[in-house]
């Protein structure tokens, strides 16, 4: 049960954003990706989640190659992403945001909606209960009926996580979950993510906040200028001179 990323390359015009990026992780595990600005982390995320096509290489989840699948199909295959800048459905309430993410709803087709009203009602009740559970789990109860556009940055991050959960993935790709989130919420997020991981959901996390990330994940991939620089536990990776050179620059040296 693994996610393996093999030899991914991608250029924009003349600029090589990704070059032969490879790594592997058990899909129930926690893996972090770090790197300086412009290292290609976000591009990698977009390629893995199917929002940008790769020029070369392959993404395989649990033995199934995903390369020919679009973003939606990859999500259905069990790999759901969040966004660096939260993309909440701003007109919908928090609860509606969560309910919208539940997969395979009969009422999402016009025929189902009008021809099988009983089934739609039953599903709605179940999904609503699920959403309420997620709200409680994420401690968003106070804003459950608020349009998502009015949430704080941190609350939106929580909501994104909750939405991803509602889609019932095996693996969640988190794009800078701690960026712009106040320290109290960061702790809460770390704790919630860890709790979810113990339930068997894997996480691939891009993060700038090295400190927070080190406390969350047991293993790190370090990227620089579109390449993988090192892979290993936070301690070993951070001890690597090449990493210190590229990522931490003169600050630590």
């Amino acid at each position, binding site marked *: 049960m693994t996610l393996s990323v093999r030899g991914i390359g991608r250029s924009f*015009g003349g600029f090589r954003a990704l070059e032969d990026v490879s790594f592997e992780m058990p899909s129930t595990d926690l893996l972090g990706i770090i790197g300086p600005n412009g290292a290609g982390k976000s591009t990698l995320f977009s390629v893995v989640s*199917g929002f*940008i096509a790769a020029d070369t290489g392959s993404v395989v989840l649990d033995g199934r190659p995903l390369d020919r699948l*679009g*973003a939606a199909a990859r999500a259905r295959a069990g790999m759901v992403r969040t966004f660096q800048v939260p993309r909440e459905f701003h007109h919908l309430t928090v609860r509606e945001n969560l309910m919208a993410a539940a997969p395979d709803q009969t009422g999402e087709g016009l025929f189902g909606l009008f021809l099988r009203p009983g089934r739609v009602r039953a599903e709605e009740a179940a999904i609503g209960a699920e959403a309420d559970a997620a709200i409680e789990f994420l401690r968003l109860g106070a804003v459950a009926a608020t349009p998502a556009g009015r949430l704080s940055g941190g609350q939106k991050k929580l909501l994104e996580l909750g939405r991803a959960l509602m889609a019932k993935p095996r693996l969640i790709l988190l794009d800078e979950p701690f960026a712009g989130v106040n320290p109290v919420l960061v702790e809460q997020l770390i704790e919630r993510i860890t709790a979810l991981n113990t339930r068997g959901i894997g996480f691939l996390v891009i993060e700038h906040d090295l400190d927070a990330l080190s406390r969350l994940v047991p293993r790190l991939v370090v990227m620089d200028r579109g390449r993988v620089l090192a892979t290993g536990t936070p301690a070993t990776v951070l001890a690597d001179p090449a990493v210190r050179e590229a990522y931490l620059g003169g600050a630590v040296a």
Partner: protein
Amino acid sequence: MFGALLVAGIVHGLIIGLAALAVTLVFGIARFPNAAAGDTMTAGAYAGLAAHKASGSLLVAGGAAMVASAIVSLLGYLLVFRLLARRPVASLLVAAIGIAFLLRAALGLAFGHQQQVFQVPLAWPVEVMGLRIPPMDLTLAGVAACALAAAFGVLYLTSIGRQMRAVADDPDLARVSGIRPLRVMVALWLLAGAAAGIAGLMLGVKTIVSPEMGWEGLLTAFAAAILGGIGSPAGAVLAGLLLGIAQEVSTPYVGFTYKIALAFVVMLAVLLVRPRGLLGRVEGLR
């Protein structure tokens, strides 16, 4: 017959190309299809007509058409589009339709709905390599070539032109590299307006001038801009020529009604194969 249709197609295509250039510049940089481009053309045609009546010179008429359309275009930006910069594409589109209607109404009130014509001398065709070419076609092709050369000169040889293309390529990148957006936008709308003005003048000289003339050709210009790849000036002109020639040359086969739909069908076919147009970069996967 084929040769004659080819010549007609090239002249027709140059007009479409100029109009498409105006559309694609705005499309590439301001990121919406400017539905007011057609009526900006009409404004240019009327200004050119007035100048031609006063001076009798096509050159003066061309200058007037460019200036008038450039001003109209810039006003549209300053008064409306600038205020909508952060809105969804649909808002800009609807506002553009509104401006188009306003312009047409103003021209109708000012000049009436009767057709007007450029009083240009008509002459018999000249023989070039066995092809009989109307001298007017040569004049118009010359005008279009000069206008295109000037437009591409601005785009590729001046600093503001390079900045425009940079913004078209990547607005975010351009913002961090210190390009002043207002200056670029003003230059952009002026250039797009001037191109539309020349297109309007040519259409007016070739046919007749009426308040509806620009709107009628808008769809073809859109098709050419999309076909050429949004934001690609060379693509727009190329696609314009392609559509112009295709419309003329294909008529013996598809008939005279469906030739209008041809632009649309070609556009659809190309978009199916290359969703970003002929010269547009292919990116993303949906």
